[in-house]
């Protein structure tokens, strides 16, 4: 097991970067503008035409080319990518993020989230003793691995459209792997799970509400849907503008304010039984903002989707990342200091909702 982990954790070599230059050049030959669908003029959540620009930004994670915009609906508060990436565009920007060149970075990040994963697992304890738990959008199954220590008798299955889910089974983190789209697989999975979790998953989908409908159908009455999502109303997030992670993650198509999500759950007979705002906060906003700034000032000259490195860009990259560690450290310390303040105020960069599928006969409980 350790052996495979090391293979994952190994950062990509210069040759790995160089090998990809040709395919990326080909993919970008017609420009990246074609990856964007036409912009919409009304809110995808409520249909209102009162839209305002929330932030404009480049790709601040991978530094792939392209300009992006998030709009906010002034009627319902929904935040969304507009224009939105097409399926082809998403494939382009997902590439080498969780896998390939990005694998070692994302793996390192996920490996350090043990405590967060455990706290997610613990939070359901007052409501349900899970027997069968399905994690939708499980990636490699890092959550299941850490949740197992909280719920040793629970069977954790994973669903994802990437091949990480099979890797998760191979490593023994997941019992069963369901590979594909949840909407396609849900009919076969209906009634089999007492908890279905979606951590930082809904915001990646083109139609989050359709996914909630699928989840509601897949749960038997009394089953639980467990969600964690970025909160677009978070004050520090608004202040950081393009540097706020949930915005500069181009895979995020929709950021739903909590009231909209709660109403969408209730409309599907999913009764919210537990909502966490401040307690679920992840103290990473400033840290990630500083890292994004570093990537903006000194991008890795080897990146195959950027112009070939020059002496200047190589030197700039080296200088920026030599100077960065103390700044990142300071930013992280500040994040940690702010966390209890946000918790006390009951706000945070994410919220968690646990909702119980009501008996369809009992309309009064919804």
């Amino acid at each position, binding site marked *: 097991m350790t052996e495979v982990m090391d293979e994952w954790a190994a950062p990509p070599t210069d040759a790995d970067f160089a090998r990809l230059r040709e395919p990326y050049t080909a993919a970008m030959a017609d420009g990246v503008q074609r990856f964007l669908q036409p912009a919409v003029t009304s809110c995808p959540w*409520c*249909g*209102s*035409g009162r839209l305002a620009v929330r932030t404009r930004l480049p790709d601040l994670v991978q530094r792939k080319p392209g300009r992006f915009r998030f709009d906010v609906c002034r009627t*319902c508060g929904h935040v969304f990518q507009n224009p939105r990436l097409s399926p082809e565009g998403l494939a382009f920007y997902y590439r080498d993020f969780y896998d390939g060149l990005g694998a070692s970075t994302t793996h390192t990040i996920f490996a350090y989230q043990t405590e967060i994963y455990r706290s997610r697992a613990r939070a359901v304890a007052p409501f349900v003793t899970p027997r069968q738990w399905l994690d939708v959008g499980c990636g490699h199954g890092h959550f299941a691995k850490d949740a197992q220590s909280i719920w040793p008798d629970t069977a954790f299955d994973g669903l994802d459209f990437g091949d990480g889910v099979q890797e998760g089974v191979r490593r023994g983190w997941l019992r069963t792997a369901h590979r594909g789209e949840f909407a396609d697989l849900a009919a076969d999975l209906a009634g089999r799970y007492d908890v279905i979790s979606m951590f930082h998953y809904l915001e990646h989908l083109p139609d989050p509400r359709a996914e909630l409908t699928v989840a509601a159908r897949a749960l038997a009455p009394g089953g639980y849907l467990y969600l964690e999502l970025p909160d677009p109303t978070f004050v520090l997030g608004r202040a950081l503008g393009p540097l706020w992670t949930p915005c500069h993650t181009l895979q995020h198509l929709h950021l739903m304010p*909590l*009231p909209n999500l*709660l109403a969408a759950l209730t409309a599907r007979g999913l009764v919210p039984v537990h909502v966490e705002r401040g307690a679920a906060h992840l103290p990473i906003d400033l840290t990630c903002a500083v890292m994004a700034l570093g990537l903006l000032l000194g991008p890795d000259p080897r990146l195959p989707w950027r112009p070939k490195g020059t002496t200047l860009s190589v030197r700039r990259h080296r200088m920026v990342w030599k100077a960065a560690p103390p700044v990142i450290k300071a930013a992280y310390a500040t994040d940690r200091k702010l966390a209890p303040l946000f918790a006390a105020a009951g706000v945070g960069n994410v919220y968690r909702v646990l909702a119980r599928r009501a008996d369809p006969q009992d309309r009064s409980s*919804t």
Partner: protein
Amino acid sequence: MTEDIDERIAKARAWYDAAMPDAGPAAFLEPRRTTCPWCGSPALRIRLRGRDLIQRKPGRFTVEQCRSCGHAFQNPRLNLAGLDYYYRDFYDGLGAEISATVFALSAEDNRKRARAVAAHLQPDNWLDVGTGHGHFPYYAKEILPDTVFDGLDLSAGVEEAVHHGRIRTGHRGLFPELAPSIAGTYDVVSMHHYLEHTRDPRAELDALALVVREGGYAEIEMPDVASRLGRALGSWWVPWFQPQHQHFLPLSNLLGALVERGFRPVSVQRHDAHSTVDLTWATTFAITKWAPDPRSPWKPERTQHWRKRRHELAWSKVFPRAARVSHGLDVAIDRALARLDVGNAYRVIARKEAR
């Protein structure tokens, strides 16, 4: 039906006496709920404590508002016996004449509602849900002479509307129950100041999505609880309309629910849906409070002559003057609201998209 008014009141008194539970009007209320009926959040706050300011029937009512999604609702809400008690003699019976007079004043509002839809299509047929006595179709005909109007209502008013030729077909009953039998048959379905009276607005919207044909339109108008004026007037703000109004949807929640049901909002009007009546209604509330009708059959019988006199004087001498002032203020407020594009109601027109 040519009964003397005194006889009718005496009969009504007997009914109201018998209908009042031993425990008093509190028995007309269901248990208070602890979560928002719209989004399930337990973060509720009391928005309003009020009474029946129009008929002055006994009872106290509370409207709570959800801190999460902004939905406001009567809580505890009336049970079915309570709804029966408070609706009685309001639109029909003893209240028929008064409500007909009030509806007649809304001619221009009704024409506006028809014009707003006419901007999008010339419908062949139109169902008005919660049509009452068919006042809306009556005025809408002026704008859309070639449209066939049908009406739906729980009350007998819908049959009267057919009788008077205001609508072609009258559907009497609950909309969610009738919807499957008329699914996909209408170009336009309207709900003007209707949804707030229902017990389950989502079930009504499900029915709406069923009855409007693909490519057809829905028009919804209802009170806007975000109105500043509502805050200023407190419980005397007429859109609270206790105890009849059960649910107040913030615009965003209604729009979201429409989109979920396959509608695309094509027009949202705020000031255009405002009716310039807030202070005039508040004046009526004052008069009914300080000079109540001594004949009201739901109140203890009072026969003193001075009460009768006070009631007459209040309506004949005080009200016309007070109403002139309050209407003037309403008009002035209306001008200010026009600039801000807000009002005491909103109107949404949404197109049912092909699935």
